[in-house]
């Protein structure tokens, strides 16, 4: 087990103290968001990082949420038993196995030898439970160092976790800030209060609208891999292979299951737990290859939605205008996916030679490996000029892919692979959003034209008035005033009216043309 952990440390993102701290924050925040928004609760998350021992680079990370909590008896398993998971039901979720949390605990204890502190109360629970837990790496089971329970006087629900780990705050600081802000963009309904050793961040809730929760669903036979299958099998004692397929997978009826098993060369009546590891591998391969499954369903996906993306991008990026598009579900290799994009322009976005790209997979911000991500390729190859964007420009692009199985480019899971169907959807989504941007910029151009005409004359007024005053010995201020008046007469608008015109651009036109686009 210890070896397994060491082997997979890098996969999980714990290969150095900087990355480990970042990953810890990620896991805890993502769990908190999963425990709240998925269940219709507006997330409120408190995050604290303290330096515990500077010399040894020990920090503590505390995360508390107002989610559905964990039933008292389950807490040790959730934190202390690797491969224990309640997440293989196929809702689109942030974490993949719930494995990340275990990684945090394992890493923490292996660097500081301290337990993880957990306090939690499930919804409607009359008790609050507190534990100190470590993982026994030999038996892969939790070691409970302490356990307390006490009455839940104020009916609190949620989970609070504190871990002590070796982590580099200074090196991870920027990424953590970045991550929290990007999370706020895609989850503007969340309230996140962060306090670090030298930094405080308060990301306010911007809306009370939640994205629609993904529905529960059974996995599609094409989408499981060996580890998932192992888990599912472990939970299906007593079933035959035929029953197992019918009960555990989506849209697999008796007929389909029988035909498949015959084609794949399996005995439908064998006990599912009797399968050898090699047979399990073969089964997975056959399920992936089989062409007779029904198409995967997409109600399990939970895109954020254009409205929330626009709220988040405007609030965090300070953009002048945001145009978001959520595409219809598509699929690749049997896995449904949805691409959403938001194009944010102007305002406080600093101008740059290439668009700033913010990538998300299943609502998780992807901060590393941008160069390997297909989204970067799509954004760079996109013909922005066609949409009235000239670089350097104040432009940020958000690309969010939600799927039951995100195709990562590498084990690091920070970049999305170049899957043709996904690439195509990204291009189409960008095109749809950019069209709206173009309309906005054209309008702006026209309004700005008048304003620019004014400026091209007004900029000389002071100089002219000054010089004419000296030559003619007449009053400079009077001359300047009259010159301004002459300009207003020529343009046909007073300066006040001009300014009102130009500033009011951000508000009205977008709603108007969204209505007509319907």
């Amino acid at each position, binding site marked *: 087990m210890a070896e397994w952990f060491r082997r997979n440390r890098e996969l999980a993102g714990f290969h150095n103290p900087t990355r480990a701290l970042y990953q810890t924050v990620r896991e805890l925040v993502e769990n908190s968001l999963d425990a709240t928004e998925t269940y219709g609760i507006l997330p409120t998350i408190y995050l604290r990082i303290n330096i515990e021992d500077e010399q040894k680079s020990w920090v503590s990370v505390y995360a508390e949420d107002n989610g559905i909590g964990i039933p008292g008896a389950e807490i040790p398993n959730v934190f202390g038993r690797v491969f224990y998971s309640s997440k293989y039901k196929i809702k689109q979720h942030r974490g993949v196995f719930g494995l990340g949390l275990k990684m945090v605990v394992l890493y923490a204890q292996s660097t500081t030898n301290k337990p993880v502190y957990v306090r939690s109360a499930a919804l409607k629970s009359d008790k609050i439970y507190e534990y100190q837990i470590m993982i026994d790496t030999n038996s892969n089971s939790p070691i409970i160092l302490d356990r307390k329970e006490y009455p839940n006087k104020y009916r609190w629900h949620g989970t609070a976790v504190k871990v002590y780990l070796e982590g580099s705050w200074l090196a991870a600081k920027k990424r953590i800030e970045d991550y929290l802000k990007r999370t706020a963009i895609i989850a503007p309904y969340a309230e996140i209060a962060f306090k670090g050793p030298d930094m405080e961040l308060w990301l306010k809730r911007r809306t009370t609208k939640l994205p629609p929760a993904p529905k529960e669903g059974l996995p599609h036979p094409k989408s499981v891999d060996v580890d998932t299958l192992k888990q599912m099998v472990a939970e299906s004692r007593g079933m035959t292979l035929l029953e197992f397929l019918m009960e555990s997978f989506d849209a697999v009826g008796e007929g389909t299951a029988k035909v498949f098993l015959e084609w794949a060369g399996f005995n439908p009546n064998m006990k599912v737990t009797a399968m050898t590891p090699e047979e399990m591998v073969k089964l997975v391969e056959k399920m992936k290859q089989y062409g007779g499954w029904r198409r995967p369903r997409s109600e399990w996906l939970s895109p954020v939605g254009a409205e929330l993306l626009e709220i988040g991008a405007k609030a965090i990026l300070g953009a002048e205008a945001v145009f978001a598009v959520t595409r219809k579900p598509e699929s690749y290799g049997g896995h449904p996916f949805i691409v959403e994009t938001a194009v944010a322009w102007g305002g406080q976005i600093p101008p740059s030679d290439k668009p700033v790209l913010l990538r998300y997979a299943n609502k998780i911000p992807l901060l590393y490996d941008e160069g390997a991500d297909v989204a970067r390729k799509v954004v760079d190859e996109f013909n922005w000029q066609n949409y009235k964007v000239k670089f350097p420009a104040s432009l940020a692009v958000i690309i969010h892919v939600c799927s039951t199985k995100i195709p990562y480019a590498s084990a690091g899971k920070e970049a999305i692979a170049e899957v043709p169907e996904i690439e195509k959807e990204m291009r189409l989504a960008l095109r749809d959003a950019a069209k709206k941007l173009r309309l906005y910029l054209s309008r702006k151009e026209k309004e700005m034209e008048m*304003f620019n005409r004014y*400026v091209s004359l007004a*900029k000389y007024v*002071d*100089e002219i008035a000054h010089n*004419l005053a*000296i*030559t003619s010995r*007449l009053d400079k201020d009077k001359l300047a005033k009259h010159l301004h008046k002459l300009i207003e007469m020529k343009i046909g608008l007073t300066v006040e009216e001009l300014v009102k015109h130009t*500033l009011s651009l951000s508000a009205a036109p977008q709603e108007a043309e969204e209505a007509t686009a319907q």
Partner: protein
Amino acid sequence: MTTRAEFLKRLESWGVKLAKDVLELKEPVMEIPARTLSNTIWDEKARMLKLGPEKMHRRFLDMKEARRFMQTVLMLRLIVEAIREDVYPTIRDLYYNGKHTISFKDPLSRVHRENTWDEQSESNAVIEDIEVATNVLREEMGVSADVKGKIVGPIVVRSQGYELDASKFGETALSLPVNVDGLEIVKVEAAYVLVVEKDAIFQRLVREKYWSQENAILVTAKGMPDRATRRFVRRLNEEYKLPVYVLTDGDPYGWYIYSVYKSGSIKLSYESERLATPDAKFLGLTATDIDAYKISDNYVIAANDRDVKRAQELLRYPWFQKPEWTREVNLFLKKKKKVEIEALSTHGLKFLHDYLKDKIRGKKFID
């Protein structure tokens, strides 16, 4: 020095008119005679270029004209102030005095920065605009320019009380002053004036004492002549009845320089009466000279597109439409060959002198 009071008045009243229009909420418009080819008239009788009646209207409320308007108003003030303060700036001084950055913060709080002018050509142009618009010459304003002209020869002048004998400058030369009208000519004992386009040739002729053998006054303006040099040549011709001969390279550029000395320029056609020397004659080099003086092919250069274009323009100028010039320019266009004065060395370095003497004594010049 003459006072500039009356000129100051003219400049000020031009400015006052613009200011008063503004105060009456009338769009201020500057009426400036157009110094374009189409408004340049060839006066056959006077044998010089004159300015036509066309006027440009420079308006402030026109986006394309606003900058020029601002520049003109600025320059007007600089000149007016100079006269009021009794100083005599050069055009370069005015350029530097007026050059600064305008900074404007618009109602959206964006800042726009722009220089009043960037190149001296811009400030020079508005000075000329003011000259023609107010009918006050630069010299009358007291504004001077870089002087390029040099002379050597049997002439004595007096400047600021000092007597200067242009025949006693050895291998150096006497520089013409900015205000040639203020130069007193004491004595002239020359037979003719030889105007040379290029400084290198001028210096050769000085060193080889051509001027003293020929009793000639040598003049050069190192290329396209400035006003002072043109004025001086005219004075020599007008006041002392000296023949004026011009020597340039054998290409359209050189031929145009000759026409500027003789008939005036398009840009300064309003100054022709003071600056043009209608009696000037052209010695060479002509297109015909190439064969006539057997200049070898080694010294002949192929004409490029710019030369050809310029030649075609010359053909269109009314003051070039004389039979000899038409012949020369057409020959140039046909042969597409040009020569520099130095090409005469084909027959040895002394040949330049022989050439000049041959042309002058044999009256082999073009009008």
